């Protein structure tokens, strides 16, 4: 007997996560070197963990205000002003959430009417399209291309805008491609958003992990954009705090108010211990971020060169901690490559199509793994590529 008829149609129709499926396959193997993770290998810096212990020791175990601790909101506004050059009012324009994932859900539910179209660049983070569907919107993927280093171009975006377009979701630096946007390209995109009255959700979770001294530009900082942007950020990547589930959204008061309506009933408030830890991260965490970034940058240099040396072309991403090499020269599909590599060489990476159809021909490899592990993984990938060409 199946109860599927009791499941809401729009939830039933969401396809199973490609990443979840692959996780189940990897979980059956032993002694795997994984380049399949989406989180830092560093544990949260000790001073941040210690601040959480202090918070618990002092009995800070109660609800906070719905929007989040006022001190944390003040710290966030200071941080966003300093690093992203956008000013927000800590009393009315910031909401502390359970990771950026919750913030995306709040923002989409707050603005979408059924059938409204949400544009997003693809390959992209796995939750974007389902989140849109769960909010009764229509997800519209805008493919990006390896020859553009997976940047979103204004031309590609313009070609997908319709009268029903309401929201644009951006994620730069990008998971899974590591792509970043230049100021010039963002300005063209901003112009389109203003012309077509789009709301922009800009997920900048990887912004601290920008390499080669490149400038990270937030679209929210461009003229005319603050009023139509939801700036999304959190602590997971830069401060190695994935398990703390803590993020935030900054948006104009009218939009924060609407998001708040959902947050207060669905979540009430973000975890108090995590909020206290987050204050410590923002106030004293810069040094730790810098040293982790340097480490990632060295690994990126290593792994990009190693892939290109194997004849698998791979652009050198300027952000995040992923590379997205093209594996089509092996004659295998992304899935065949990932399964074969796992089965024969015990190295896990994620097939590109898990991040959208335009990811075919690519795999995502995460270099948030020790360099020693990366070296062994690259040796094994080299063997695998040589054997598949025979």
């Amino acid at each position, binding site marked *: 007997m199946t109860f599927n008829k009791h499941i809401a149609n729009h939830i039933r129709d969401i396809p199973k996560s490609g*990443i979840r499926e692959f996780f189940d396959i990897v979980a059956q193997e032993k002694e795997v070197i994984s380049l399949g993770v989406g989180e830092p290998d560093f544990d949260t810096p000790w001073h941040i963990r210690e601040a959480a212990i202090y918070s618990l020791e002092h009995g800070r175990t109660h609800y906070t205000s719905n929007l989040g601790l006022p001190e944390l909101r003040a710290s966030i506004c200071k941080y966003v002003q300093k690093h992203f050059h956008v000013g927000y009012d800590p009393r009315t324009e910031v909401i502390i959430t359970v990771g950026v994932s919750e913030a995306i859900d709040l923002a989409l539910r707050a603005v979408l009417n059924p059938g409204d179209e949400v544009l997003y660049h693809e390959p992209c983070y796995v939750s974007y399209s389902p989140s849109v569907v769960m909010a009764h919107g229509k997800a519209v993927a805008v493919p990006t291309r390896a020859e553009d280093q997976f940047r979103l171009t204004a031309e590609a975006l313009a070609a997908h805008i319709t009268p029903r377009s309401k929201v644009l979701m951006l994620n730069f630096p990008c998971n899974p491609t590591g792509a970043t946007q230049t100021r010039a390209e963002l300005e063209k995109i901003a112009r389109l958003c203003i012309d077509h009255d789009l709301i922009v959700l800009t997920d900048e979770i990887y912004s601290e992990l920008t390499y080669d001294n490149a400038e990270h530009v937030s679209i929210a900082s461009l003229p005319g954009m603050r009023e139509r942007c939801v700036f999304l950020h959190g602590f997971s990547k830069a401060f190695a705090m994935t398990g703390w589930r803590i993020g935030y959204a900054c948006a104009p008061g009218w939009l924060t108010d609407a998001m708040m309506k959902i947050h207060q009933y669905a979540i009430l408030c973000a975890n108090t211990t995590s909020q206290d830890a987050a204050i410590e991260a923002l106030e004293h965490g810069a040094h730790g971020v810098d040293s982790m970034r340097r480490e990632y940058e060295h690994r990126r*240099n290593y792994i990009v060169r190693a892939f290109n040396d194997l004849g698998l072309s791979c652009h050198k991403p300027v952000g995040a901690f992923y590379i997205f090499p093209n594996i089509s020269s092996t004659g295998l599909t992304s899935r065949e490559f990932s399964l074969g590599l796992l089965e024969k060489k015990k190295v896990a990476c994620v097939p590109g199509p898990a991040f959208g159809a335009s990811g075919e021909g690519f795999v995502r490899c995460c270099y948030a793994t020790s360099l020693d592990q990366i070296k062994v993984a690259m040796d094994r990938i080299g063997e695998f590529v040589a054997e598949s060409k025979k």
Partner: protein
Amino acid sequence: MDPLIALLRQNARTSTADLARELNLSESEVLDRLAKLESDGVILGYQAVVDSQKVSGSIVTAVVEVKITPERGGGFDRLAERIAKFSEVQSCYLMSGGYDLLVILEGANLQEIATFIAEKLSTIKGVISTATRFRLKTYKENGVSLTREIKAERLAVTP
């Protein structure tokens, strides 16, 4: 800090090939820069970080706070350099605060260090006083923690 130095401070045995890949340089560029750092006296040596409690033939370590009389013209330098010459002295620093030199000594046993301080260090003209403290246990050495933390598990595949 020079990223090359930062990498070597983490692991001095990293091969030049790996250093080149990590720093996006050629191997010959890495070798040239290493040679220059060594000849300029920036890199003074390459040593293993050892848990001395596990080394057979135990080593005793003491820190000695030394007060000395500065000299006209040379300040503390001449005396400090003289003290540093002894092979028992592992490190020697001029300090701010209540004493002048912090001297770290290594010896085969307590007696050897006591003898060195009584017969050599304290008898040098210009040394006013010494205060000696012996190391009992090491928790962290050169940035390396000796208590092995169990690495928290990560899921193998995550979004």
